[in-house]
């Protein structure tokens, strides 16, 4: 199994009371943002990701979010670039760039290719549509989000793989001369991963034999993860091939402590801040019209009370939304899940919500030394 250290880089020192009062950190007025604090946090988080290489993670990962304390990386390109120069061996995963939000996909193709070349071919390129809230903050029309995503993807992959110049005639993007400098170092192109909260449409598209992209289920209860990873495998069978384990991934926050009790005690407030403050947003913000199918939207409306209420650390552990405990507990939980789901990639967030630097490092070290070897051996 390949293990990747994922970081959201939250504005971890956000005024929790103010965020609670506002109801969400998405669109929290930026009077709550202090560049001095962010300076300290950015550098701390970059150090944590770099430390991931030293601890033996296979990859380190960043992503994209806008106008929120949830994640401070409106451009994951900036952080991935810094990491490309400060690391030597680890893969650098951008999970992902929000294609429909970007004015022009050519820019994404160029920037990802640059990082692949600078890092000597260590880039994993993730594509996402961005969170619903970002269609509010960015103004991009959510009803054309899927269309723009697919078209941007097509343009990027063609720009990476075809000899230029050629012209691209799309509905949303038109370019007379596509002739990329730089070309990515990895051939035919960097691995493409598709992080998702779970959708049949996304799975059908990612699993298609022309693509076979790694599908990454993010921050979901373990039963939901199992359901979607199985759906991915079944979809591949439907297309007439068997999915490799490397085509499946799971992204989840974890906390490893000396004992189960110590782990829960240390993680409790920080995890609950993450789940109940940083993740929270109103339905209208989360799912603007057209961001999902109307059937999916109706299902969410039905599950609204459950989805939008507070969750305690104990409930989250029970649901498999969070893996927390002694090294033995954490290893056995993941082994059990792996036996059931056979995911070839595990992304762990060792920092979440307000978790401070000392606990984040302790978590990373215990995981890397006492859990990771057992997981990497799974095959």
């Amino acid at each position, binding site marked *: 199994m390949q293990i990747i250290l994922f970081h959201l880089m939250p504005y971890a020192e956000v005024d929790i009371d103010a965020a609670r009062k506002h109801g969400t950190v998405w669109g929290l007025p930026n009077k709550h943002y202090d560049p001095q604090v962010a300076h300290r946090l950015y550098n701390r988080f970059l150090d944590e990701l770099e430390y991931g290489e030293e601890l033996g993670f296979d990859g380190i990962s960043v992503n994209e979010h806008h106008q929120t304390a949830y994640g401070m990386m409106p451009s994951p390109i900036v952080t991935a670039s810094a990491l490309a120069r400060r690391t030597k061996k680890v893969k650098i995963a951008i999970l992902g760039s929000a294609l429909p939000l970007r004015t022009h996909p050519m820019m994404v193709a160029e920037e990802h290719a640059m990082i692949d070349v600078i890092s000597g071919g260590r880039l994993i390129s993730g594509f996402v549509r961005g969170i619903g809230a970002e269609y509010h903050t960015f*103004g991009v*029309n*959510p009803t054309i989000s899927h269309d723009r995503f697919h078209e941007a993807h097509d343009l990027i992959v063609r720009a990476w793989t075809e000899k230029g110049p050629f012209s691209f005639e799309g509905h949303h993007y038109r370019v007379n001369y596509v002739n990329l400098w730089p070309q990515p170092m990895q051939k035919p192109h960097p691995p493409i991963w598709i992080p998702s909260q779970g959708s049949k449409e996304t799975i059908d598209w990612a699993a298609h034999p022309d693509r076979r992209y790694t599908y990454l289920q993010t921050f979901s209860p373990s039963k939901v993860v199992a359901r979607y990873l199985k759906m991915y495998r079944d979809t591949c069978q439907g297309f007439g091939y068997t999915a490799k384990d490397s085509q499946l991934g799971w992204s989840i926050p974890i906390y490893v402590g000396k004992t189960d009790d110590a782990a829960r005690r240390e993680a409790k407030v920080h995890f609950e801040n993450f789940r109940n403050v940083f993740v929270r947003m109103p339905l209208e913000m989360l799912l603007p019209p057209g961001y999902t199918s109307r059937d999916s939207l109706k299902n969410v409306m039905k599950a609204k009370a459950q989805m939008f209420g507070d969750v305690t650390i104990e409930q989250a552990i029970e649901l498999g939304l969070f893996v927390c405990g002694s090294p033995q507990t954490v290893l056995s939980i993941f082994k059990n899940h792996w036996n059931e789901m056979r995911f070839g990639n595990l992304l762990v967030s060792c920092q979440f919500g307000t978790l401070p630097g000392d606990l984040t490092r302790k978590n990373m070290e215990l995981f890397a030394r006492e859990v990771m070897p057992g997981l990497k051996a799974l095959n």
Partner: protein
Amino acid sequence: MKFSDGFVEVLGCKVHLRRAGKGNPLLFLHGASGAPAVLPFMEKLAERFDVLVPEHPGYGQSDEPAWLENIHDMAYFYLDFLKHLGLKEVTLVGSSMGGWIAMEMAVRDTSRLSSLVLVGPAGIAAPGVKPADIFLMSPEEVVKGLFFDQKLAAARLAIPETPESIDVGLKNRHTTARLAWEPRLHDPFLPKWLHRIDVPVKIIWGKQDKILPAAFASHYQKLFPKAEMFLFDDCGHLPHVEKAEKFVEAVCR
């Protein structure tokens, strides 16, 4: 007055159409919440006009055509609709989004129109005036925001939801987003061509409109210096619903 209830197909798109009355035609273009029922103002207008109330493509029981991508598509569709039904001397009445569609039609072609009635219209941005963000409001908040008299909002919210009404609500919201998400509820190029509207214009606004505040009205007055302006007291975003008699009087005047 009994409204006929059926479908008419234009450009391969089936639209749900209610129609009643005799006289010159009056086409009512609904706003973002659709036109799910026959309302008293329609019945009163039908005493003077041949009233047509379609549900727009993408709304209510009408089709959702793939070609419908922006408000201009909608305007061309309704110009074809007028031609298809052979309507002439049309009084074109549009509420909110419907007012926007009416203006987009009229800058293109007024040959079948006799006058334009804009009722709390969307479509034009006014400097310093912010519309409510209907896409960040829950459906309940939207209904409350529509009315000055909260008893009317409560009555509308008391109508029990059905699976069909939930589907229609989501469909209407989707189409509104498709047409009006960005630029939000307006066409920045529309004001350049308003001089092409060469039929009489009436503008009706609720003074307590919380969706498109009445401050918009003074901007419209500058853009349509010859228009007749009606500002209704104790009235929200739907003057035709909240002040039906005064509304009908203003249209008929």
